[in-house]
């Protein structure tokens, strides 16, 4: 079923919208959640929450790109769930690894907690990514949005894991520099 049709189902408040979404994007969303949470049980709960949030937000939303819209919901829901997990049970290995790597991007400075800065940070990161060659920004998103492992990225790109690691290192260093240049502190 086409995405537009599914969105129309949401707008018409037909419950089949959820079933169709599950059929088409269930595995995709579960994959995103699993990489962050690392266990099936939490994944299922997270994906089910996604369907509920989609139901509650469409309408008034009319996403132009449904999978991206859903993927972002799942990702954030999974991250919220991740924060609630105990330290013993915490998260998917790749998500943890990606967080360790992202530590390097933090520019020097004090902490700012306002929600607006969160949105601005997203915007600034987007701007930074647009300055990169396509393959580099794709690599960044695959690693830090989708939490693809370095091994998978190496396979996707037909190169060694060392090369992937060094590319990511340089991209992170560039992001840090960009954030500092913009006067952005986290």
């Amino acid at each position, binding site marked *: *079923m*086409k995405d537009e049709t599914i969105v129309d189902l949401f707008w018409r408040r037909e419950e089949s919208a959820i079933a169709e979404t599950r*059929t*088409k*994007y269930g*595995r*995709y969303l*579960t*994959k995103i959640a*699993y990489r962050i949470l690392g266990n*099936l049980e939490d*994944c299922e709960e997270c994906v089910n929450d996604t369907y509920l949030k989609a139901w509650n937000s469409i309408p008034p939303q009319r996403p*132009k*790109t449904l*999978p*991206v*819209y859903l*993927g*972002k919901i799942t*990702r*954030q829901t999974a*991250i919220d769930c991740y*924060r609630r997990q105990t330290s013993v049970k915490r998260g998917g290995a*790749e*998500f943890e690894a*990606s*967080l*360790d790597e*992202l*530590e390097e*991007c*933090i520019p020097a400075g004090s*902490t700012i907690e306002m929600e607006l800065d*969160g*949105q601005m*940070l*997203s915007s600034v*990161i*987007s701007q930074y*990514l*647009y300055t990169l060659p*396509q*393959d580099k*920004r*794709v690599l960044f*998103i*695959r690693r*830090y*949005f*989708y939490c*693809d*492992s370095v*091994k*998978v990225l190496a396979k*996707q790109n037909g190169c060694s*894991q060392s090369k992937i690691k060094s590319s990511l290192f340089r991209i992170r260093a560039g992001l840090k520099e960009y954030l500092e240049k913009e006067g952005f502190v*986290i």
Partner: protein
Amino acid sequence: MRKAEKISEAIGNIDDKLITEAVNYHQNLKRRTHKSLFIRWIALTASLMLVAGGVFYGSVWMNSRRGKSGVGKSGDAEALFQETRAKEGTEEKIAWDTDDFFQKATLDTADEVEIDIGDKEEAVTFNYWISAEVDYEKKAMEQQADTALLEVYKNQLWQFYQLMIPLVLGDTGEQNQVYSPTQLYLSVGALAEVTGESNRQQLLSLLGMEDTEDLDELVQALWLSGYKNTDAIHSQFANSLWVSKDYAVKEDACALLADQYLTSVYNGGMGTDVLGYYVREWLKEQNDGFSSEQVEDISLGEEVQLAVLSTVTYQARWQDVVQSTDVISDRFYGYNKTTNCEWMRQEGDFVFYTGTHFRGVSLPLPEGDSIWLFLPDEDTSVEELLLESFGEMAQLLQEEETWEGQREAGTQVLIPKFEIASELDLKTALQDCAVTDIFSWERADFSGLTDDQVCLTELVQVLDFGVSGQEFLNVPIEGEAEEQVISVEESTGTELKMNRPFFVTVTNAQHVPVLAGVVYEPTQQ
């Protein structure tokens, strides 16, 4: 909240176009470029032959015999996915499974599968194939090879090698053959850990061990001694156990096998396309030298209860030798025919060893490894050499410097280009060594692995091992352009020419034989 989590959260809200681009990028890349690994391998080999310094390559892959043990032709994963999609009535291919199809193998029936050609890490979520998996690269970084332990058990190891090398290679029907005796030791060691008492005694007896107390450490030491990953050499053993989904495996046993015996364990539906796909993917993941074409027929038949699959990667550059640029004319004199073939001449300071029925030489490889070539005397076959002289050769392999046989200085070694593709039934070889119970339905005892009655069905190594070099030159075909050929004098005291069937082995710095083979016929022009 960690600051990194704020960044991660912010990444979650970046421009939608960026995310869309990331998803579509690899799909478009796949459609544009689909050069097979095999073609890349050929191109790489060809290009390396043009570059100074030869390349020595060897790779091992698994293959079950077609037509035996119920091994069937492997399915096409993408075709099966498309068929499954069609069954579900989906109008369009799901683009948002990133670059993968997605698999969910149930334990009930192989028909309810959708195919995943993706990350094995994802596979564990949805199909439960993986009971335990080894990250070899990580293992190599965590530990150092305990070479002292290899010295402690040197006699036991060589007792095994002296039994198994002639046994496996001594009667090949005059066909090229190669296998890894050390990989076999590792595989048998892993089995010894999960078998009951009577089965275990047979295995330990073969390994030369009284009990399993030091066995896991010895296995690790052996494995680590064979692990190398540099620009000049890539060497790695990889072992796996595949258990039919009809039998539940014990988690702690699987974890032990992975952690202590460097053996991954997989539990799934035998005889299914899905399993076949994962078998092939595992082989390709563990061995970069395998192309899809090389492994395309590999699978495990539905009657398989338990199977051991192993692969050995071995790729290395020649070390400290000079490739000659002279045109060489000579032929390889097989037992039944003379073959025109390409030759490589290596020049350097060599020591030629002369023993009972043989002359031998060691050529250096990176990281202390060596390739040994043993040429039988003219009146001795390779089989006779292995059966009668292997003990002497083993002494030389272990203690080159103190070996008491005759030696002389040499300056040239001529090696024909060869490639050995072997498919070995090691089950028979083990049975010949009185290891029989693990293969018997009635007597097999894998109680350490599963509470079900199960026997070992398959224990196979298939190897691809070859030699090439920068100056691999063709010998002109008889009757054509002979006037251009430079005749070569018969082998003198300063030259060793491997121009008849010979034995070859690769040993590492600890003198452990990584690969062993017999060459009856070189690669024809």
